[in-house]
């Protein structure tokens, strides 16, 4: 499996007229979408199910659909409601490998909707089967469930879905949740990684086959101030999908990663996030959810925004898969003999030792740095064809061009030390580099 970059279409593509949004998503480079069943059966609709016939208007989008049959009342209509979106995806060759079943509001008191949620989840599984979607996110039950009773209630709920999921080759993904406590969000079900891992293992053991996994929501981890490296490392390969979204750590939003900034620093622990996923060798689905950011942008700028979102996702993918790229090659050399080379050697020097490093500065040729001989670039011409050159210098494109112009045809990769498994306490100044 290779890491696919998907887009959460909510707020980008309209349900009944999805053409423009889906084309923008496909043109930006996304490989697929998260099929969000909440687009046809929102938490708002569920909140008022059986209470009032005409939904209190929440937003323009919802009011446009007031006349259609409510999926909450007719779960069998779930697939039909999503069909225009799915057909448009097919047309644009977008994958639909993961779906999210309808879910309740965080502050709901609708503990009476368990059977409705179960029915909606069942219908979502059937839809997954129809469209060849392998994963379905189903949130744990929480409404009006007493503290300490969460596992019991969710166990019963999930196991009731296991048979249908297995029959349809769909894996159910649990997702970390916040809990609303008198106006603020605190840790909820599956927020503690150990608990989530234990739930999944027990569910799989009881189901008799691996039909439960995990979807890690980075936004929820950030809201709960969690150490995302720890979180990912505890859950390990149970994590099949990751939702990438940013927030200020206090309010739940779906902002474009790296855009929640304070004091010149991101408010989200992207370092821990990347460390964790890199450590576990994550290669599942990377779902970009930036619906809050998109909602503030003019329609006119949406295509550019979606393209930029794809660039951001691609960058994160590159960072996560850094170690997997190192693993791909049996032999490697580095280009660059400064801090980035030093950081490479600190974190990966033992596991993936380079043959040598090289540098354009002829004064340093023949020197040893971090246990590596510094050779002139010309020496790269003598490398065997399967040996990769990892550029450890921020002038990636220029150096790559230089090497290609020298006639080097072998693999060239970019190494980057922005998100490393660990750091030195200091950084070498330029004069210290050669002294060392």
């Amino acid at each position, binding site marked *: 499996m290779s890491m696919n970059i998907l887009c959460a279409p909510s707020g980008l593509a309209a349900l009944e007229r999805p053409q423009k949004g889906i084309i923008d998503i496909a043109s930006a480079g996304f490989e697929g979408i998260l099929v969000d069943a909440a687009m046809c059966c929102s938490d708002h609709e569920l909140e008022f199910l059986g209470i009032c016939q005409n939904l209190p208007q929440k937003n323009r989008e919802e009011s446009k659909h007031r006349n259609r049959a409510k999926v909450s009342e007719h779960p069998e209509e779930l697939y039909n409601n999503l069909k225009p979106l799915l057909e448009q995806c097919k047309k644009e060759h977008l994958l639909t490998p993961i779906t999210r079943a309808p879910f309740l509001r965080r502050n709901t008191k609708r503990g009476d909707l368990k059977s409705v949620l179960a029915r909606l989840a069942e219908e979502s599984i059937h839809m997954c089967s129809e469209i060849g979607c392998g994963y379905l996110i189903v949130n744990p039950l929480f409404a009006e469930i007493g503290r300490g009773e969460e596992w019991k209630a969710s166990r019963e709920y999930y196991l009731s879905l296991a048979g249908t999921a297995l029959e349809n080759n769909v894996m159910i993904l649990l997702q970390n949740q916040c809990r609303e406590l008198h106006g603020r969000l605190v*840790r909820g079900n599956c927020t503690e990684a150990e608990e989530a891992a234990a739930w999944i293992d027990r569910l799989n053991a009881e189901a008799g086959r691996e039909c439960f996994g995990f979807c890690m929501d980075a936004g929820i981890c950030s809201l709960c101030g969690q150490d995302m*490296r720890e979180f990912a490392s505890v859950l390990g390969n149970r994590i099949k999908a990751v939702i990438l979204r940013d927030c200020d750590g*206090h309010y739940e939003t779906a902002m474009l990663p790296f855009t929640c900034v304070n004091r010149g620093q991101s408010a989200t622990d992207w370092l821990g996030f990347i460390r964790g996923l890199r450590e576990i060798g994550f290669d599942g689905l990377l779902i970009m959810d930036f619906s809050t950011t998109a909602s503030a942008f003019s329609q006119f700028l949406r295509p550019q925004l979606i393209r930029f979102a794809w660039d951001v996702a691609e960058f994160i993918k590159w960072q996560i898969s850094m170690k997997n790229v190192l693993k791909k090659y049996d032999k490697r050399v580095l280009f660059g003999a400064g801090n980035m080379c030093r950081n490479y050697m600190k974190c990966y020097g033992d596991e993936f030792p380079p043959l040598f490093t090289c540098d354009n500065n002829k004064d340093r040729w023949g020197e040893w740095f971090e246990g590596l001989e510094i050779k002139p670039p010309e020496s790269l011409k003598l490398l065997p064809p399967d040996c990769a050159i990892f550029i450890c210098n921020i002038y990636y494109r220029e150096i790559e061009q230089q090497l290609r112009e020298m006639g080097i045809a072998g693999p060239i990769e970019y190494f980057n030390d922005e998100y490393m498994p*660990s750091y030195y306490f200091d950084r070498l100044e330029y004069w210290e580099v050669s002294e060392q």
Partner: protein
Amino acid sequence: MIGIGVQTKNVVNDNHPEEGFVMLKRAGFSCADFSLNAYLSNVSLYQSEKNDFFTQTIQELELFFTPHKQGAEAAGITINQMHMPYPVHVPGGDREINDYLWNQVAPKSMAVCAFFECPYIVIHGFKLAHFLGAEELEWQETLKFIDSIAPLAKEMGITICIENLYDGIGGHLVEGPCCNGKKAAERIDYINDKYGAEVLGFCFDTGHANIVGIDFEGFITTLGSRLKVLHIHDNDGISDLHQIPFTFAKSRENLSSTEWDGFIRGLRKIQFDRVLNFETAPVLTAFPEPMKRDVLGFIADIGRYFCEEIQRQDVINS
């Protein structure tokens, strides 16, 4: 019997410490958390500045704190816990400061703790996960520090308490050392087995836990009898404000946005019978000076409320 305590900072001063202890007693406290950390501020340390307070000999320090000890005794206040200055390691700080913290401040703090006949001293774990890359590696460094003072703790009959802390990323406070109750419990057991004595325990800080949305009840229950001391204070879930419990609400329902019910349930479950200690020194600078006695009295009242709720027989029996 459950005691009620509060920090000495902003109440007990070095010129007339006995007056501060009398004020605490009159406000309704039976115990105090001696703010030893006030003698070496963390703000200065992070700026690589240190004062020379802890360069004094142990005898000189004992002499300095004798009026404090006598004042507490005379007022009938038990020094139940104290806070070692923190940090005890400045990441990337110069060697001189880190040597001073480790080799002077820490052992002398233990000596002062013993001098006060205080059973618990709270320390801060090292904040090194950013550099070292993993919480476990960070803990190994804290462990080295604990190992350096644990023999003293055993000899002096003191329990060192680790505390759940936070760290900051772009102004967003996130979990720091000791925020995993299960791991903390395992680590405490390991150390205590190793030393054959209760040299390590836990200090649960409600404000720090609230900032990162930790489930109070679950955390306290996991710690069980390893929970020795408390830092009770409240905040808005965003900043570490050290304010009076029940003073923050986030919705029109105007219910407390901190899970005090879970706090009570947790302490009740583990049959907590130690000291309900408030770490609310900043409250005393927020209120006007003439209201200090009233404010302290109100905090002590909240302590009594907690105490009654924790010990409610009808709930315990049910």
